[in-house]
């Protein structure tokens, strides 16, 4: 986890410097010094004052922290890895701990986004499948219903009724799961990212509707997608299964939003 000091600054990322009262590292005490934490919160350096001007230019230890690193705070004392640091105040210790816990929380946010996206994906892709089949039924009812009959559980039902019944049940189930997943994920994702997920889901649903109706130039839908940070062309939307691609393109914006919500939270 830790690297021996290399003498010069290794980290080029912007760092936050915190004055420390004392530090203990490998059973040795260091009175005064600086604790530098990089912006990403995954690297810290312990530096010692140098000379009469007290320039903090000797690096005692540098740690690259994994997202699951245990960070403990007790008053002004911060314990992380083999390092125990007493900062100037409990508030400073809390701020550093918050910075150091950010990678874990970002990882968690990415996990939550992926989890919620999975349930949204199941719902929207089921809906896409249903609308694709209904589109084919409009054009070639016999061929489409014949092909879908293999998935039907009730051979005595009217084939079109059976299609509606099967897909309505699947949609209702996946819709409930999606709503539950969105509600459950909101605490971790934050209101902003959750609202964005709802907006993306609804917009993709509207894209599906427009493709099903077949008479739209998709201009409004493309503009709405752009507003949501999803860049697509009409040609891309008219490919066989655009939903999965739309969700993939929405992912970075959602993760970024969830991360921002973590920063402010």
């Amino acid at each position, binding site marked *: 986890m830790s690297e021996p000091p290399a003498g010069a600054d290794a980290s080029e990322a912007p760092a936050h410097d915190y004055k420390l009262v004392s530090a203990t590292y490998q059973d040795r005490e260091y009175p005064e010094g600086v604790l530098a934490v990089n912006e990403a919160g995954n690297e810290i350096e312990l530096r010692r004052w140098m000379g009469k001007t007290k320039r903090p230019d000797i690096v005692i230890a540098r740690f690259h922290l994994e997202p699951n690193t245990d960070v403990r705070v007790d008053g002004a004392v911060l314990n992380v890895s083999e390092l125990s640091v007493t900062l100037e105040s409990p508030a400073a210790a809390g701020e550093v701990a918050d910075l150091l816990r950010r990678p874990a929380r970002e990882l968690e946010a990415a996990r939550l986004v992926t989890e919620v996206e999975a349930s949204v994906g199941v719902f929207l892709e089921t809906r896409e499948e249903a609308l694709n089949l209904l589109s084919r*039924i409009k054009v070639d*009812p016999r061929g489409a219903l014949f092909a879908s009959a293999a998935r039907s559980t009730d051979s005595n039902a009217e084939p079109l009724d059976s299609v*509606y019944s099967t897909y309505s049940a699947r949609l209702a189930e996946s819709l409930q799961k999606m709503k539950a997943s969105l509600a459950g994920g909101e605490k971790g994702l934050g209101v902003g990212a959750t609202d964005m997920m709802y907006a993306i*889901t609804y917009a993709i649903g509207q894209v599906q509707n427009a493709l099903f109706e077949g008479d739209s130039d998709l201009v409004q839908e493309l503009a709405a997608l752009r507003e*949501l940070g999803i860049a697509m062309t009409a040609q891309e939307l008219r490919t066989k299964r655009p939903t999965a691609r739309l969700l993939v393109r929405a992912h970075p914006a959602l993760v970024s939003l969830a991360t921002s919500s973590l920063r402010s939270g």
Partner: protein
Amino acid sequence: MPRCPNGHAQRLGLKCLVCGEALSFRDSMDELGDLPKVEPNYGKVAVIAVGYPRLSLKADYVGEISASLADLNTPNAFEVASIRGGSWLDYSKKYLEQLRTWMRLVGIGKSTDRLLVLDTSDPLSVLALSALPKLEHTAVIAVVADADSTPVEQNTSYVALSLALRKGFPIIALTETFEGDMLYFTEDRGFAVEADALSRLLGSLLGAADDLMDLLERDMKLGVQMHSLSAIVAGSKSVYGIATNAFMAQSYDLSMGGKPEECQTVHSLVFAREESEAEFEKSFGVFRNRKFKGALNAEFRFHETASPLYDLVTIYGMRTEASLQDIAPGYQAIVGSMPELSVEGAS
């Protein structure tokens, strides 16, 4: 639809175009769970052919029911594996439910009109009629066994015809001999015989499906369910002279026995150039008065074509028992030794 806090509804976008507030999508998720209703277009005329795998017909849908090496179902074909020594009853026992399912899947009841073209000597014709529900606007073109057919063929044909009658379908019957002797001229391919000739004749009837169904259903109301037909395909003035001659000539070659004078109804469908309509209509009146004075109903229907050659198809309403009498002995002979092959055994 998503709404802003001020209640303005908007389908797309993040901000309300009226007041600029953020839209809320949370309450609009349920509308994505509803699927739009579709009304599939199954077309106007559906044809189901049994025992005629080579028919070439122009219809919105043509489905074939036939025996082959193995079971194979597609949207246009219901093929069953041949049963060695199998009677119509064996096929019905084995395939009735499967065929009912197939018919439901291909939306047999969804077209406006249905035409069943049956070789009634084929055991699958009984299966097809058993599987077909009682549907309005459904007519049967039946090629029927005749005195030259074997008792087994006569039995199958008799059962199939009886089943069609029991289900209330109007029938146009052609004997196997009539069908075998059919020979028509086609402008694009010359002379047509066998399946090609039947396709050519059916082509004319399908071209006038509305009128055909209308005439057959009118006859049904008069209690006339069974019909015979006669036809001139690709007729011309140079061959028949005046139109009255054409009407008279074709009436000597009916598709099913019986005398024209005994017919209860008579209807002619003419497919010709517009300018000849008046002559054909007048000639139909002469034809009717000369040979069918006692007919309960007689109607003339004209269909304009571009061809200089004309088609003339006349449909004669007959007494039902007349159609069955030639094949009744064969039917009885089989039922005498195999009682399960009686009409009552067919569903």
